[in-house]
């Protein structure tokens, strides 16, 4: 049972007990009140009514006397004040009689009705007498007032009043005595009641007290004990023991509280577990954060290393270009050196033969001096045979050609060395100088020829362009990169006929422009934006560093303030446009700034 129900029940029991006591007391009181409420007021009321009627009767008698006397006095004295007095009092009498009829008992009403009738008759006659007096007929008026008719009525009037007084007197006594009786009775009953009530109240009070205390004890026990348990459990929980058992099984609020408490404990356990998990998570996360931090440091380190490596790679791209160049140049020189060396060996062989033959001729000359004809002809035959064996005719005919061929070979090698020097400007320390891009293109073409000539024909449309101020070796490196890329792109198509690479130069208001276009496979649109990115390459692993165009971009755009633009459409070809600015003054200014900044050769500006 719920505590509220229990409390209500307990209070109901006490209240019912109190109600029973109250009811009994009320009954007792009623016993007293009955005579007090009915008998005594009745008699008191009849007494007051009687006394009121009595006084009314007194007034009626008094007013009547006043009227009779006033009418008489007016008739005798003709003094107007009496007429006035009469008219003043007459309504009062009328009202008093009316009042007595209303308030009186049935018997009294009969008496007062008689009085009323007599009064009407008397008043009529008296008004008549007053009228007569006013008309000067005083005698007539007196006559009326002293007539037997007038006095008869006067008697009736008196009799009515007398009848009332006789009956009214007895009633007054009755009322008094019955009142006294009722008061007596009531007093007695009250005394009895007081006695019994005192006992009753005493007994009931004690019983109510016991009931209240009992109910209180029972209820408080059923509330207090489990609350104590809960308190203990809460204290235990507070110490962190979440496994505390609560043995409260009642169905009331405390039971519900206990159930809630248990639920709270369970939730708390869950929460604690999840908090533990969270703590663990936080620790884990901190670990992760720590490792992320470490990873980040590692990453920064790697990034730094990577940057260093990138500069190394840029350097190695330079070296790779030079290596490529060297390989190309070496191959280009292998052939002329090859045949010159071969010719040289042959020449030695030729000379040996010629020497041998000359020796034979010498011997022949000696023998001619003391000669015998047959011997000479033998010798001549031997020489002639040797000449044939030695293929001297061929040798003599071939000798000029051998020299020509060898000279051409030596020229080729000389030209290659010259162009190589022009290309890389190895005789200069990489400082900017006046540069003719057409010369740069020619030098680069000779160097790159070996890479290109088997796959593509090169067409050049070079117009006269002004000299620009820049680092020739770097610009040539860019030209070489683009030319070799073009040749390799054409080669990758494995086509039957050779491709074409077209090189154009011209000058605009601001720039010297060089366009290098090929009719190779072109670059796919999604790859085109990436071609200047470092390490972007479409060549197989190990074939390209992916830095060629990146370095080219750096050289043209960053170092020389120029522009490097790539246009391409798939299956039609690719065009690279190099724009190098003309303006000298600015270049000089920037170069001076550069020189004051640091001695590094990295940022060298060309033109604009």
């Amino acid at each position: 049972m719920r505590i509220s129900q229990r409390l209500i029940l307990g209070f109901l029991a006490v209240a019912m007990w109190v109600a029973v006591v109250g009811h009994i007391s009320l009954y007792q009181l009623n016993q007293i009140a009955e005579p007090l409420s009915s008998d005594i007021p009745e008699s008191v009321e009849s007494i007051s009514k009687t006394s009121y009627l009595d006084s009314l009767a007194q007034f009626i008698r008094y007013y009547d006397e006043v009227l009779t006397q006033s009418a008489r006095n007016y008739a005798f004295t003709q003094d107007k004040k009496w007429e006035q007095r009469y008219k003043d009092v007459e309504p009062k009498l009328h009202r008093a009689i009316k009042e007595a009829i209303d308030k009186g008992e049935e018997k009294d009403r009969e008496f007062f009705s008689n009085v009323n009738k007599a009064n009407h008759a008397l008043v009529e006659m008296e008004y008549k007498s007053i009228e007569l007096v006013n008309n000067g007929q005083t005698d007539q008026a007196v006559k009326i007032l002293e007539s037997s008719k007038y006095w008869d009525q006067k008697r009736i009037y008196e009799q009515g009043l007398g009848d009332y007084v006789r009956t009214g007197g007895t009633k007054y006594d009755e009322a008094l005595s019955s009142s006294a009786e009722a008061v007596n009775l009531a007093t007695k009953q009250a005394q009895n009641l007081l006695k019994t009530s005192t006992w009753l109240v005493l007994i009931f009070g004690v019983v109510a007290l016991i009931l209240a205390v009992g109910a209180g004890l029972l209820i408080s026990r059923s509330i207090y004990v489990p609350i104590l348990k809960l308190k203990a459990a809460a204290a235990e929980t507070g110490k962190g023991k979440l496994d505390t058992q609560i043995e409260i099984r009642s169905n009331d609020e405390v039971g519900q509280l206990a159930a809630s408490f248990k639920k709270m404990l369970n939730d708390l356990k869950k929460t604690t577990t999840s908090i533990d998990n969270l703590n663990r998570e936080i620790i884990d996360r901190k670990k992760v954060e720590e490792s992320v931090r470490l990873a980040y440091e590692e990453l920064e380190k790697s990034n730094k290393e990577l940057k260093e490596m990138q500069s190394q790679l840029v350097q190695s791209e330079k070296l790779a270009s030079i290596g490529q160049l060297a390989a190309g140049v070496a191959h280009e020189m292998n052939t002329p050196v090859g045949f010159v060396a071969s010719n040289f060996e042959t020449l030695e062989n030729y000379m040996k033969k010629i020497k041998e033959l000359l020796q034979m001729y010498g011997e022949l000359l000696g023998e001619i001096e003391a000669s015998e004809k047959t011997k000479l002809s033998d010798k001549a035959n031997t020489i002639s045979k040797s000449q044939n064996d030695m293929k001297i005719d061929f040798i003599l005919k071939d000798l000029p050609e051998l020299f020509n061929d060898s000279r051409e070979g030596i020229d080729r090698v000389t030209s290659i060395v010259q162009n190589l020097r022009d290309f890389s400007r190895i005789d200069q320390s990489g400082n900017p100088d006046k540069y003719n891009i057409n010369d740069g293109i020619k030098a680069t073409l000779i160097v790159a020829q070996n890479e290109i000539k088997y796959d593509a024909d090169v067409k050049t449309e070079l117009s006269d362009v002004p000299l620009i101020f820049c680092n020739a070796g770097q610009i040539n490196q860019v030209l070489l990169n683009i030319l070799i890329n073009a040749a390799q792109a054409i080669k990758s198509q494995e086509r039957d006929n050779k491709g074409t690479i077209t090189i154009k130069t011209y000058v605009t208001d601001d720039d010297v422009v060089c366009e290098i276009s090929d009719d190779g496979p072109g670059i796919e649109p999604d790859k085109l934006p990436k071609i200047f990115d470092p390490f972007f390459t479409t060549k197989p692993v190990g074939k390209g560093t992916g830095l060629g165009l990146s370095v080219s971009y750096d050289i043209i755009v960053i170092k020389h303030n120029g522009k490097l633009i790539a246009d391409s459409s798939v299956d039609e070809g690719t065009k690279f446009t190099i724009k190098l600015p003309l303006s000298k003054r600015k270049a000089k200014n920037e170069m001076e700034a550069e020189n004051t900044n640091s001695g590094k050769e990295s940022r060298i500006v060309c033109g604009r």
Partner: protein
Amino acid sequence: MKWRQKTLTVEKRAVLFVDDDEIVLRSLERGFLDEPYITLFAKSGKEALEILQREEVHIIVTDMRMPEMDGLDLLETIRKMYPHIVGIVLSGYTEMATLQKAVNQGEIFRFIPKPWKLEGDFKKVVREAIEHYNIKSERDTVRQQN
């Protein structure tokens, strides 16, 4: 007697040189002037194939990089049409992957780099190639007889 026979066999052999550079061919012509075998010269792979149709050739010495048909293509064609011919490469072009492929396919007997040495190297290699050819053909003959 044995040497004599060998010499005779060598004299009957023909060597075809292929290079797109005529100066190279001329220097080879004069270089191999005193060699006992027949020397033939072609400026391109196409010309080489034409010569092979007319003449009996036993050894071929070819450059690698030539326009239209390069040395490897030529050797591959020859291996299919004239499998007995021994191939030698004379080149300044030393790209390993291409060479490796050619050697592994058995198309090349020897590789001679440019610039070359006539005495001791080049001529010796050509003679070795001829001997190689002779041994092979003798073996084939014996096999056929058996």
